[in-house]
């Protein structure tokens, strides 16, 4: 085990997989950075430093710096995937999906089905998402609710450096299109990461990060840490929380959620996307449909308000679900008998 930052787990996993399989290629805006400038190639290495060094190691055929053309990037990934390559395309900010959505939604996600199962489409689309940088409404969104709702895509949301390693490797080796969502506020997070170059985490298997008898808390990404902090605080008061890190939202580990709720009888879903038609509302509905008899309180979701994301620090803090809001939600579901 080595200590590693979340962002370094991204770049080292890509490098390991590119070494292992020559069909793995990367493309995106500024993933090399500095091309055609006096500073020269690798002056940047990706604005999130998630591709630093790849160009020097693998060259221009496999690390393709693109113009700002999100549709063309996603379309090229689709064409590469249909031609026997395993592209890893970077969408610099998740907010830019709107510009390229046709290629993700109508093309990549649907090829296998429309073509009668006679093709595979091994593309990974990485994107940085989430609030916490005061980057305001067009550079802060959590977009998993949109992408999770699209059949044909797998959606991954790692919350630790180790999970980046294990889930990204699985994504790169997966023969279906995978959306890999990296939280901007987690890039600097440090954690233990297995050294094993075959370390993989299967999709659709949630991780129980705290165990308790009283409340089930489901989350993933940045907010998972918030949930764990609340669980730790309440444990001191004798309140036990199951904290479930979903890891992937499509496929989703319904069984882990239902099993936990069968014991606790209380559910809170903490989700960074706006509330309407969200991951939280989806999970609450699933539990209401499938574990109604076990419930001792209504399932509760903790989302941001239904607004675009604000700029000012005070406003963004008020927007994001906080530990206080999560704690209040736990106490609320406990108030039912």
């Amino acid at each position, binding site marked *: 085990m080595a200590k590693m930052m979340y962002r370094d787990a991204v770049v080292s996993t890509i490098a390991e997989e590119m070494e292992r399989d020559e069909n793995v290629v990367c493309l995106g805006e500024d993933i090399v950075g500095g091309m055609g400038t006096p500073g020269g190639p690798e002056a940047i290495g990706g604005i999130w430093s998630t591709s630093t060094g790849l160009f020097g190691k693998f060259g221009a055929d496999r690390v393709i710096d693109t113009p700002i*053309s999100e549709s063309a990037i996603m379309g090229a990934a689709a064409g590469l995937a249909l031609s026997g390559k395993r592209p890893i395309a970077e969408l610099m900010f998740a907010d830019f999906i709107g510009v390229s959505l046709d290629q993700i939604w109508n093309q990549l996600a649907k090829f296998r089905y429309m073509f009668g199962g*006679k093709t595979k489409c091994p593309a990974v689309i990485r994107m940085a998402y989430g609030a916490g940088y005061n980057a305001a409404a067009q550079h802060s969104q959590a977009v998993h609710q949109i992408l999770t709702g699209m059949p*044909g895509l797998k959606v991954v949301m790692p919350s630790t450096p180790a999970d980046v390693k294990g889930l990204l490797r699985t994504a790169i080796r997966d023969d279906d299109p995978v959306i890999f969502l990296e939280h901007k506020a987690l890039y600097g997070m440090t954690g233990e990461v297995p050294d094993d170059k075959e370390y993989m985490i299967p999709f659709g298997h949630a991780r129980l990060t705290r165990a308790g008898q009283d409340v089930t808390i489901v989350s993933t990404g940045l907010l998972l840490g918030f949930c764990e902090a609340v669980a730790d605080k309440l444990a001191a008061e004798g309140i036990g929380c199951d904290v479930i890190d979903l890891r992937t939202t499509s496929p989703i580990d319904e069984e882990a959620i239902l099993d936990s709720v069968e014991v606790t009888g209380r559910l809170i879903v903490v989700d960074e996307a706006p509330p309407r038609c969200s991951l939280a509302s989806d999970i609450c509905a699933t539990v209401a449909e499938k574990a109604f008899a076990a419930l001792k309180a209504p399932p509760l979701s903790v989302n941001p308000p239904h607004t675009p994301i604000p700029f000012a620090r005070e406003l963004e803090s008020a927007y994001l679900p906080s530990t206080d809001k999560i704690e209040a939600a736990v106490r609320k579901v406990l108030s039912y008998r």
Partner: protein
Amino acid sequence: MQLSREALLRAYRQMKVIREFEERLHVDIQTGEIAGFTHLYCGQEAVAVGVCEHLSVEDKIVSTHRGHGHCLAKGCDVNGMMKEIWGSREGLCKGKGGSMHIADVDKGMLGANGIVGAGSPIGVGAGIACKIDGKGHVAITFSGDGACNQGTTFEAMNMAVVTKAATIFVFENNHYSEHTGFEYAVGTQKDIASRAEAFGMKVWRGDGTDFFSVFETMREVLEYVRVPGNGPAAVEFDTERFFGHFEGDPQRYRGPGELDRIREFRDCLKNFRKSVTDAGVLEHADLDALDTEVLAEIEESVRQAKAADRPTAEDVLTDVYISY
């Protein structure tokens, strides 16, 4: 006309298969037995065949919503195609794609496409793959004059130049994007090729109603793009669409006598027949024999499509993912 007798017969046969496949669809669609939207390619056969006759199975093509001609020219199975359009589970895509989404990746046919302009970026990706592999293979994207106004086409042309993708943009200008005229919708009101030229690509132009013009033009284009390091190219073929945008389109936007005129003077099959018989390379009887053979082949494909298995409700859920 430097083609061998065999090559000429083959090209004619390929064009005739597309023509009869679609003329038959045009009749069968009226009965209501075929579901959904169908966009016929009739009139443009010389482009699909003139391009694809140069390609091997390792070369890729990306097609449009008007894709039957490209699919057949690239080697997709006639019976599999007909069954697909009839919605059978024995169809090329198990009845899940239909007319607009036929693909056969094993044949290098990367898909027709229901979204106008969506193919160009996919063709660039396939062209980058060809460039990386360095074996002289290319990827070709067919687009119409409608698609040339989409931003994706512009992004793709620029990206192809920047990445030196081994890709060719083949623009089939049939003068109509859906029901809107080229003169109105294409701002240059001149051509499409000049746009590609503006992106720094070498461009060619040809008569899309003349197989020999397409074939010879593509010989030059391919010779250029197959050279490693040369990067992309574009070519515009002026052509004609015999049927409407979709089947059932009454074509009220056409000028008086327009369809009669193009059927008379701009029919690539008629033009081909005249060229080869005038030159004394083939006899009318040779071509008539092929006509009969093709008609029987199409008749058989319809018979098979009608008799083929229908999909069941269970089939809805298969092929979403490879693994889940």
